[in-house]
């Protein structure tokens, strides 16, 4: 196994969340193919192996164990902070018990801040801005919008959703004490089929703005229900752009009312990213959604392995944990913070609506796309961490 770098991608490949999981795997394969065509990393080929965790923490551990038994040393996961936390704990334990065969966990989307704070680990890297970081940026944006008076929070009832709500409450209070939070709702994760009762509540509360961390169908169904009952508010979201979201927004006909904060969109006019997006879209015609976070994670991993000249996590982590990097979406300045292994990168706030003439990327063949409405540079997103990292001596 010395001549291949095995990367275990542990994410849902069947069941409810498979749509997002599959997109991630597609992108991993796409990246690996590109690298392999150029001769690989340090002459070694990249092999991406998908492991289906059915978005269940316990199954994830079984799959990680399986991956390790099959010679994988690098675990990549993103979907779900509950899963992420379980893997983080497992990796920590595993490395402690197997001091001569380390594994590393590259997290591209599980962004519960706990993962890089109280339960941070030397063997874990977070490539997406965590909930607090994103909320910091988002509230900075909201701060300038005078028309926002009443905010409603609706989130999924699990660690990530609670993290979103908590940070929203505290940061809004600090930055815009005049804003009234008229609702702070949690609903079960992927169990609700009919969101109209929630919409009725939002409407009754008189909110003008909703902030939500919902993703997947919890987002699509929410936005559709809102559209159907004519709820007249603006939406600030974390994941409106993920699989299914754009279709739903288009169906709800919410032109320019849905905002998203993330690490990048296709319509930033940055040629390298646009080319990659086109190539990718040509291969994966059915699901051309692109997650820059995955490109960031992989590129940085490869850079670290190249620099360290080894695919052994123990050897390349020192390179990775203090790396400076130009982010995928627009080449913006980014850096990995050594204290908690959190990547800081430029974040973008964008709005969804019909494409302008100079924009070339629509989403999910809807004819609508993302337009940048705000940008926060990496250094403006830095917030302190409580991480007390245990480093191997």
């Amino acid at each position, binding site marked *: 196994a010395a001549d291949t770098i095995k990367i275990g991608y542990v994410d849902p490949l069947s069941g409810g969340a498979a*749509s997002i999981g599959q997109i991630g795997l597609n992108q991993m394969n796409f990246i690996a193919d590109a690298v392999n065509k150029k001769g690989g990393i340090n002459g070694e080929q990249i092999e991406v192996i998908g492991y289906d965790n059915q978005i269940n923490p316990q199954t994830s551990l079984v799959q990680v164990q399986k991956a390790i038994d099959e010679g994988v040393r690098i675990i990549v996961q993103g979907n779900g902070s509950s899963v992420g936390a379980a893997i983080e704990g497992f990796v920590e334990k595993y490395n402690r018990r197997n001091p001569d065969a380390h594994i590393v966990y590259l997290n591209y989307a599980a962004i519960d801040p706990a993962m890089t704070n109280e339960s941070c680990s030397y063997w874990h890297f977070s490539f997406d801005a965590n909930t607090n970081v994103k909320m910091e940026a988002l509230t900075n944006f909201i701060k300038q919008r005078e028309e926002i008076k009443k905010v409603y929070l609706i989130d999924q009832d699990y660690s990530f959703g609670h993290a979103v709500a908590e940070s929203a409450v505290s940061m809004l209070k600090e930055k815009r004490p005049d804003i009234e939070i008229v609702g702070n709702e949690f609903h079960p994760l992927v169990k609700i089929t*009919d969101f*109209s009762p*929630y919409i009725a509540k939002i*409407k009754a509360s008189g909110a003008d703005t909703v902030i939500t961390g919902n993703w997947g169908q919890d987002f699509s169904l929410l936005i559709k229900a809102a559209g*159907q009952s004519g709820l007249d508010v603006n939406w600030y979201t974390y994941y409106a752009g993920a699989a299914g979201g754009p279709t739903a927004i288009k169906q709800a006909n919410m032109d320019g009312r849905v905002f998203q904060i993330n690490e990048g969109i296709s319509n930033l006019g940055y040629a390298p990213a646009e080319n990659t997006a086109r190539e990718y879209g040509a291969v994966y015609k059915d699901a051309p959604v692109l997650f820059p976070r995955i490109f960031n994670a992989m590129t940085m991993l490869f850079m670290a392995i190249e620099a360290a000249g080894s695919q052994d996590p123990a050897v390349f982590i020192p390179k990775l944990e203090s790396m400076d990097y130009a982010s995928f979406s627009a080449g913006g300045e980014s850096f990995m913070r050594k204290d908690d292994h959190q990547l800081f990168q430029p974040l973008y706030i964008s709005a969804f609506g019909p494409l302008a003439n100079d924009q070339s990327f629509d989403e999910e063949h809807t004819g609508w796309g993302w337009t940048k409405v705000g940008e926060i540079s990496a250094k403006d997103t830095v917030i302190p961490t409580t991480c007390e990292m245990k480093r191997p001596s």
Partner: protein
Amino acid sequence: MFEILFISTINGILYGMLLFLMASGLTVIFSMMGVLNLAHASFYMLGAFFGFEISQHFGFWSGLVFAPLLVASIGMIVERYGLRNVHRHGHVAELLFTFGLTFVIQEIVEMVWGKLPVDYRVPASLDFSAFTVFATTYPAFKMFALLVSVVIFLALLLVIRRTRIGLIVQAALSHPDMVGMLGHNVDRIFMLVFGVGVALAAVAGVIAGPVLVTQSNMAGLLGPILFVVVVVGGLGSLGGAFVASLLIGLVQTYAVAFNVSLADVFGSSPLTGEFALYFNDLWNVTVAQIAPIMPYMLLVLILIFRPRGLMGTSNR
């Protein structure tokens, strides 16, 4: 307050009728054949995807007609070459058969339509708002769904009352051979019933598809709630299923509307110390948060105190 009550009532009715639309076929199959069709939601999904595909080419209305027909024929094939042979091995075997079927249908749907949601839209002819109350608009399409539910309910009532099919199937549950020897083609009737049952699921799929998300996981999402409807209503009772759908729709909708927890009623928790942490989860939980589990509470309570369900006749 009145506003939210009023809106909740309408929402509850609309949701309840959608539930009934989905559950009606299950009631038919469950009550008549005694088969707990775990694949019912899968046929519902097939209906949605067929509806989507047909509407792409021939418009929504052809989808509404042909998707159920297509699903019915698939259902009848499944019954003829699968379920029928399993029947004699008992209910558990039938149940597992349909369980296996859910995997197969799910994978086939993913093969054909992928894992991403498809863009299945409300037809233009129904894409307007029917009426507005308290600034909440109600789309015409939802009214249409309501109408279809009621029509199906009435039609099924009529068919079951007026024909002997119900009798024959019920008789066949205890002595299938004897029914045959009285000159009834039990096999064909079972096939028909199953076909009709899954066709109803497909109708629900065609209609719910545009309202909800048409995606390869939509079957799993529907989950056991349909069984709750059928059982709470009472096995073998269509009227029961109808009432139970409404009841569950309303209960869930109202529950979401109430943000009260024990803490709101009695003040903050009386306990302190380490144990309080765990206890307070209970103390602080709002009615809204437990809305999704209310149907199951209802199910357990009903079965304990009235095992034959709201309107069921037998407690098989």
